């Protein structure tokens, strides 16, 4: 079929919009389709974003997309012992208004010349002689339509149906997801710190978070292992994050009096990224490629990083027919940079999830804010040595982090 565009991007989240922005400003003819009625809605996210993570993007996030500046984090052990990690007077990140942020990021792409169509669902890939040549879509209430393009980019997020049809292993195993529930609550008076509560009773294989927002609001959420089977859910065992979150809130001195403004939840990827991100005429970016931080399930920064990287490679691949070989540079570069960080974070997640509450308490008693700084920066050796000095039996569990 005749190409209508150079590239069709499926999904107008941070990955898709970033790809589209860069591709369009570099002269590519870009169409973004999104199955949602409105870009950025519904929000399925804790809305946190680290400052360092977007430095490479060369964009300035507008005030209206930022709910609150974050100065650091308060991390609380099962026994209540807390460590506050903060860089005095410095903003280390933000809690966003994702609805505003996603729409703004998408508007940037439109400003650069990309075309965006909402409420359009990708049904399947179009192939000619086995080669991808476009996407079959459905507009709500209208007939199916075929759109031609020599390159299709999956920025579909968790579901990633089209990437699956293209042959990628996009299904998430229960062990590699966290199931999450979150309330937007008010009033909550805070000190611009992200708060994380650990403990196998509070949040098995996960944690409770409080992300402060403007106007005395906060996102109060929980993520727990998707493979947990300690609860009876309608006759079969499964994880029940809402129940645990409600228990946490009922025991929290401030939140137990607060109102809820929004209920939301979701399932986040905390496993390994895909092994491959490109095929002939096809790329996968962002959460669709499981490019997610395995500790906190955050995907915004990784999505934007991949979007930019993929668009740069796609631009060079234009003259080479978007073959797998011509797109492979994106995969190689991603694995060398972001992929290495994600692999380290996955090791950390797998070590932490084996810890008992007693172990967690011991760790919090052994380390300082400086140690936490090191861990945040990916340097585990010093803090691990300290922890292990007081409890040698943890050596085996934590040694993977220092090798």
């Amino acid at each position, binding site marked *: 079929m005749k190409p209508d565009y150079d590239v069709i991007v499926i999904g107008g989240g941070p990955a898709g919009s970033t790809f589209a922005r860069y591709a369009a400003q570099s002269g590519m003819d870009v169409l973004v389709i999104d*199955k949602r*009625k409105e870009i950025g809605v*519904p929000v*399925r996210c804790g809305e946190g974003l680290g400052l360092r993570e977007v430095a490479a993007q060369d964009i300035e996030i507008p005030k209206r997309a930022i709910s609150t500046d974050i100065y650091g984090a308060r991390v609380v052990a099962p026994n209540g012992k807390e460590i506050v990690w903060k860089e005095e007077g410095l903003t280390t990140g933000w809690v966003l208004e994702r609805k505003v942020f996603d729409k703004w990021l998408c508007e940037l792409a439109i400003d650069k010349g990309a075309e965006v169509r909402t*409420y359009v*669902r990708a049904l399947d890939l179009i192939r000619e002689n086995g080669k991808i040549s476009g996407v079959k879509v459905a507009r*709500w209430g209208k007939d199916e339509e075929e759109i031609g393009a020599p390159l299709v980019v999956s920025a579909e997020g*968790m*579901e*990633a*149906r089209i990437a*699956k049809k293209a042959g990628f292993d996009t*299904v*998430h*195993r*229960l062990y590699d*997801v966290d*199931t*999450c*529930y979150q309330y937007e609550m008010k009033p909550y008076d805070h000190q611009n710190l992200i708060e994380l509560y650990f403990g196998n009773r509070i949040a098995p294989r996960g944690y409770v978070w409080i992300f402060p927002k403007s106007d005395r609001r906060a996102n109060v959420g929980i993520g727990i292992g*998707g*493979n947990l*089977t300690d609860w009876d*859910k*309608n*006759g*079969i*065992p*499964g*994880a*029940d*994050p*809402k129940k645990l979150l409600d228990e946490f809130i009922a025991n929290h001195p401030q939140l137990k009096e607060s109102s809820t403004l929004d*209920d*939301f*939840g*979701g*399932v986040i*990827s905390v496993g390994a990224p895909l092994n491959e991100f490109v095929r002939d005429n096809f790329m996968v970016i962002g959460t669709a490629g499981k490019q997610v931080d395995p500790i906190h399930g955050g995907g915004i920064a990784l999505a934007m990083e991949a979007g930019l990287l993929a668009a740069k490679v796609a631009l060079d691949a234009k003259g080479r027919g978007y073959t797998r070989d011509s797109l492979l540079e994106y995969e190689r570069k991603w694995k060398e940079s972001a992929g290495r960080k994600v692999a380290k974070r996955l090791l950390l997640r797998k070590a932490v999830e084996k810890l008992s509450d007693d172990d967690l308490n011991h760790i919090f008693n052994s380390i300082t804010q400086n140690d936490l700084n090191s861990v945040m920066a990916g340097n585990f050796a010093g803090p691990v040595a300290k922890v292990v000095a007081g409890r040698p039996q943890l050596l085996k569990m934590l040694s993977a982090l220092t090798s």
Partner: protein
Amino acid sequence: MIRIRHEGCILCAGCASVCPTGALELVGNRIEYYPEKCIKCGACVKVCPASVVTLEK
């Protein structure tokens, strides 16, 4: 067969992301279920954060 209590569904599509056969999909403001694809593995039931998916014998 699974059953979805749609009025309690928060449309997170978590069920669809763990479904190995593509039997669940978020379409507009509703999770669609394609029973002919379902293998009754229960993954959707286990992860549903709102506990609105149930497996029927």
